[in-house]
C-alpha cells in the first residue's frame, strides 16, 4: 500500500547537510574540469559559499524542533533538528569558513602547504616532484565532506546514523593529515597513526552499538534512554555498550587516556588542518558526546557518572601538566586542547544544566584556537614553520603586531577576564556548580592555574626575551590568513566583553529533543 510507506522528509531541516554535501561533489567535478590555474579561486569560493549557505539554512531553521524523516507521520529519529543540533551546526559552519580561508593561504608558502598525493613514498623522486608543484586543491572537497560528517554527527538521533557521520568526518581528515608539503614523513606518520587509532575507535563504537542494541532492542538514542530504566536485559550489556561508545567518542574528543594521538597528529598535520581539527572536530565530538549522554544515557547517569568524572579529572590534570613540559608550540596547543577537553567534559557530566554553557565554550574556544594556529602558520624559518618555542623568543621586538595578537590569544586560553576564555569558563563552571559538581570545578580551576604557566611562558618568550640573530620572520599574511586571525581575535574579544547575545542564544538553544 502506497500510504503505508509514505516517507516525509523535512527538506528545509536537511538543507544544511545537503548543501555542503552537494558542494563537495561539485568540488570534485571542478577538480576534473576547471583548468589548474583557476582551481584555487573556484574551490575556495565554492566552499565558502556552500558553508555560508548552510549557515543561512541553519539560521532559517532556528525555531524548528523535530525529526527530518517521518514514516507514515511517525517520526524517525535518525536526523534530529533541535536547539543544540542547530547551534552546533551553525558553529561548525562558521568555524569551517574560517578554517577554509586558512587552508587557502598561499602567500606565506609558495603554492600552499599541501601536496596532492599522500601515499607517495616520502622523499622519493615522485614526492620531490609533487612538492615542486603548486598546492593541491583536492583539500577543499575533502574538507567539505568532513564538514558534512561533522554537521550530521551533531544532529544524529540514532547510533547508526552517528556511526556513518563519524566515518564521514574521519576519513577525509585522515587523508588531510598526510598532505603536508614539508616534513612529509612526519605528516605521513601522523596520518597513519590517526587512521589506525581512529579505526580502532570506530571498531569500539560498532561493538558498543551492538551491545546497546542487545540491551535496548533499538539504536535510537531516545529508545536506549527508555530502556535504561525499563529493559529486562542484563545490565552488563548496557555497561559494556556505554563504555565502548564512550571510548570512541572520547577518542575523537581527545580525552585522557585516549589522547595519545593528539600531540603527534596536531604536530604532523599541516597547520591549517590542525586548526580545523582543534576547532571544528572538537565541536562535533562534543556535540556528539552531549547528545549521546543527554538524550541516550541520562537515565543511566548513575552507571557512568563516576568513570566519566575520573576521565575528566585525568584529562584536565594530565593535559595541563604535560603542557607545562612542551617546547613545541603545536604540541603545547595540542596538550592545551586536551585540557580544554577536560573542562568540556565537566559540561557533559553536568548533563542538562550545562548544555548551553558547553556549547558556548565550544564556540569561544574554537575561534581562539583557530586564530592561534593561524598565527603559528605565519611564523616561519624560511620555508618551514618555526614551531620550536625557543625560535619565538623576542618576536615582540621584530613583529609587535603578531606578538600582541598571540598574547591576547594566550591570555584568552589562560582565562583572563575581558576575553572569551573567561566568559566561557565562568559560565561553564557556574553551570557545573549548579549541578553540584563542586569537585570537578575545583579541579578545573587548579588545572587552569597550572595551564596558565605554559601560556605565560610563551608570553615571556615573545616580549621579555631577546630575539636570536637568525630569528624567524613573520610572513605578511594574505587577506585570507589575515581574515582568519582578525576573525579569531575579534570573536575572542567580543565574546569576552559583550557575550550577552551569544549567552541568550545558547540559553534558548539548550534543550535536546527527546524523540
Amino acid at each position: 500500500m502506497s500510504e503505508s510507506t509514505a516517507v516525509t522528509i523535512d527538506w528545509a531541516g536537511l538543507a544544511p547537510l545537503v548543501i555542503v554535501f552537494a558542494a563537495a561533489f561539485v568540488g570534485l567535478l571542478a577538480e576534473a574540469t576547471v583548468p589548474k590555474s583557476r582551481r584555487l579561486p573556484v574551490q575556495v569560493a565554492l566552499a565558502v559559499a556552500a558553508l555560508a549557505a548552510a549557515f543561512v539554512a541553519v539560521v532559517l531553521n532556528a525555531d524548528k524542533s523535530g525529526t527530518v524523516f517521518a514514516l507514515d507521520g511517525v517520526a524517525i529519529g535518525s536526523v534530529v533538528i533541535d536547539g543544540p543540533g542547530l547551534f552546533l551546526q551553525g558553529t561548525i559552519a562558521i568555524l569551517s569558513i574560517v578554517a577554509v580561508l586558512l587552508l587557502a593561504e598561499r602567500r606565506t608558502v609558495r603554492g600552499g602547504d599541501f601536496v596532492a598525493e599522500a601515499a607517495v613514498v616520502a622523499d622519493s623522486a615522485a614526492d620531490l616532484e609533487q612538492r615542486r608543484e603548486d598546492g593541491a586543491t583536492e583539500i577543499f572537497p575533502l574538507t567539505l565532506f568532513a564538514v558534512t560528517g561533522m554537521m550530521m554527527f551533531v544532529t544524529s538521533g540514532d547510533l547508526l546514523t552517528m556511526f556513518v557521520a563519524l566515518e564521514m568526518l574521519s576519513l577525509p581528515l585522515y587523508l588531510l593529515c598526510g598532505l603536508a608539503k614539508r616534513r612529509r614523513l612526519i605528516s605521513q606518520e601522523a596520518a597513519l597513526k590517526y587512521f589506525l587509532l581512529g579505526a580502532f575507535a570506530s571498531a569500539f563504537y560498532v561493538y558498543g552499538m551492538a551491545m546497546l542494541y542487545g540491551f535496548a532492542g533499538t539504536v535510537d538514542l531516545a529508545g536506549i534512554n527508555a530502556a535504561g530504566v525499563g529493559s529486562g536485559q542484563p545490565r552488563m550489556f548496557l555497561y559494556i555498550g556505554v563504555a565502548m561508545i564512550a571510548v570512541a567518542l572520547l577518542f575523537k574528543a581527545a580525552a585522557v587516556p585516549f589522547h595519545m594521538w593528539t600531540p603527534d597528529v596536531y604536530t604532523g598535520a599541516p597547520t591549517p588542518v590542525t586548526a580545523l581539527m582543534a576547532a571544528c572536530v572538537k565541536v562535533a565530538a562534543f556535540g556528539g558526546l552531549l547528545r549521546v549522554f543527554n538524550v541516550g544515557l541520562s537515565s543511566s547517569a548513575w552507571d557512568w557518572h563516576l568513570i566519566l568524572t575520573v576521565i575528566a579529572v585525568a584529562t584536565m590534570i594530565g593535559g595541563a601538566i604535560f603542557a607545562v613540559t612542551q617546547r613545541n608550540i603545536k604540541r603545547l596547543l595540542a596538550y592545551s586542547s586536551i585540557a580544554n577537553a577536560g573542562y568540556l567534559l565537566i559540561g557533559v557530566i553536568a548533563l542538562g544544566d550545562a548544555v548551553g554553557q558547553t556549547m558556548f565554550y565550544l564556540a569561544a574556544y574554537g575561534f581562539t584556537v583557530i586564530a592561534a594556529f593561524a598565527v603559528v602558520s605565519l611564523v616561519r624559518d624560511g620555508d618551514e614553520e618555526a614551531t620550536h618555542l625557543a625560535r619565538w623568543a623576542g618576536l615582540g621586538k621584530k613583529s609587535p603586531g603578531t606578538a600582541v595578537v598571540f598574547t591576547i590569544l594566550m591570555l584568552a586560553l589562560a582565562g583572563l577576564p575581558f576575553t572569551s576564555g573567561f566568559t566561557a569558563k565562568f559560565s561553564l563552571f557556574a553551570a557545573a556548580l549548579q549541578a553540584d559538581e563542586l569537585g570537578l570545578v575545583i579541579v578545573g580551576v587548579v588545572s587552569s592555574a597550572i595551564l596558565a604557566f605554559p601560556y605565560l611562558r610563551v608570553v615571556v618568550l615573545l616580549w621579555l626575551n631577546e630575539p636570536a640573530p637568525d630569528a624567524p620572520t613573520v610572513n605578511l599574511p594574505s587577506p585570507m590568513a589575515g581574515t582568519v586571525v582578525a576573525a579569531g581575535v575579534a570573536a575572542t574579544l567580543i565574546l569576552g566583553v559583550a557575550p550577552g547575545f551569544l549567552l541568550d542564544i545558547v540559553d534558548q538553544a539548550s534543550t535536546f529533543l527527546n524523540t
Partner: protein
Amino acid sequence: MNELPLLSALVAVPLIGAVVVASIKRENAAVARWTALGFAGAVAVITALVALGFDYGDDAPWLQFTESYTWISAWDLDLSWGIDGIALLLVALTAGLTPIAMLAAWRDLDAVQRSVPAFFALVLALEAAMLATFLASNVLLFYFFFEAMLVPMYFLIGSYGTGPKKQYAAVKFFLYSLLGGLLMLVAVIALWVNNGGVFDWATLVESEPLEAGTLQNWLFLGFFVAFAIKAPFFPFHTWLPDAGGAAPAAVAALLVGVMDKIGTFAILRYCIPLFPDATKTFAPWVIGMSVIGVIYAAFVAIGQTDLKRLVAYTSIAHFGFIGLGIFAFTSESATGAVLYMFNHGLATGLLFIVVGFLTLRRGSAQIKDYGGAAKTLPLLAGIFLFAGLASLSLPGTAPFISEFLVLFGAFTENEPVAVVAALGIILAAAYVLWMYQRTMQGDRNPALDEVPAMKRDLTLREKALVAPLVIAILGFGFYPQPLIDAIEPAVDNTLGFVADDPAELPMGVSNE
C-alpha cells in the same frame, strides 16, 4: 544618581589615556610622557571633585556617587560604581601616587632601551584597573578588574624591571595572584549559585547573609586567600620580595603602595559584610598570622642585603599590622588599619621612590655598594631618612597615628597580641636605622667616588615629586582628623556585621 558620572570617568579616563599613549610612536618619548602625565593629572582632578562632593556625615549612605549600567544581564553583571570613605582614601592615594610614580620613572627608561610610550600606557592601564577595583560595587565586576590588573603589572615587572630575576619575579607574581584569583572565582560562582544569581554588592549586603556554617566558611576562605595573597599576609607573601625587588622603583611604589591595598580593602568590603560569621570564626587565625607576619618579616628585613627587597619585607610587616587592626574588630583598630593603608602608601611609596633615585645613580640596589653616601648627597640622604622614619612610625609622621590606633584598639581586645605586635615597632627601628647607617653613614665606600652620578644631589624634578609626599606625611601626622572623618562611617558600617551586640546593625547601604 549624581549629575555627572564622575566614577565612570575615573575608570574611563586612564583607560582612554592608556590607549592614546600606547598609540604614540616610540620615537616621541617626550610626547608620551607628557600625555600620560596629563591623563594622570586629569584623574587627580576628578578625584578632587569626588572628594569635595563626598558627604562625610554619619548619616550619609554607605556608597555614594553610585552609578549603574547593565552589562551582561544573564549574570547580573552591571557596570556599577560606588564609593565609601575607605575607597575614597585609596582612590585619592592611587590618583596621587600614580603621577608621582610617573615623574619618578621619567628618565629611568633612557638607560634600558625599552619603549617609553608602552611603559606609560601600562602604568595608566594599571591605574584604571586599580581604581576600578576600589569603585566597583558588583562582585563580579570587582573580580574582572582584580584579575585584569595582573597583565599590566606583569609586563611592568617582567619587561621594565631590573636584575637577572625579573622574568622569574614577574611569572611568580602572575601565577601566585592567578591561583588566588581562580580559587576566588570558585567562591564567587558558588556565592552566585547559592544566593539566587545576585552579584550586586548593595543587594547582597542588604539581604540576609548566608547561613553560618560550612558553606560560608569555604566561601570566606576562597575570597580571603585571594586577598591574603594580594595583600600579602604571611605566609602568602613570598612573591612580594621578588616582585618588589625586580620592579622598577616607581612601579614598586605603585605595587606596594596601592595594589597591595586592594587585598586589605577587599577584606573590608567583601569578606566581612558577606561572610560575617566565618569572619568571626577565622579571626583568631588571621590575627595569629598577622602577628607572626609582623615579627617574622621584620627579622627577615633586617637580614636583607638588597634595598628594594628590604623595603618589600618591611611592607609585609606593615600588612601584619593592618590585618591585626581589621580583625581585632574594634572601631579604633579598624579605623587605624584603614588609615594605615593610606599612610603606608605615602611612606613606603616615598621610600621606594627614594631608593629608586639611589639605585639609578649607583646602578645597584646592594647595600654593600653604598656606605657614607650622605657626604655627597645630603638632601637625598635626608629624604631617605625621613621616609625611613615615617615608615617606622615616628611620632609626628602620619603612620604613627595609624599604628597607635591599631595597637590601642587591639590592646583593648587582646593584650598579649598587642604586646607582641608592639615588638614590631622596635624591630622596625632596627631595620630602618641600620639600613640608613649602612648606606649613608659610616666610612665612605671608595667605589662611590668613581660613580659621577653619586655626586649629583636631587634634581628639580626629583625635589618636585617628593615634596607632595613629604608634605602629606607631615600634614596628616599632625592633623589626621579629615582622614578619620572620612573613614569612620564606612568602618562602623563594616564592623556592624561582626558586632557582638546585634543591636548595632549597619545603616542602609543603598542610595535610594
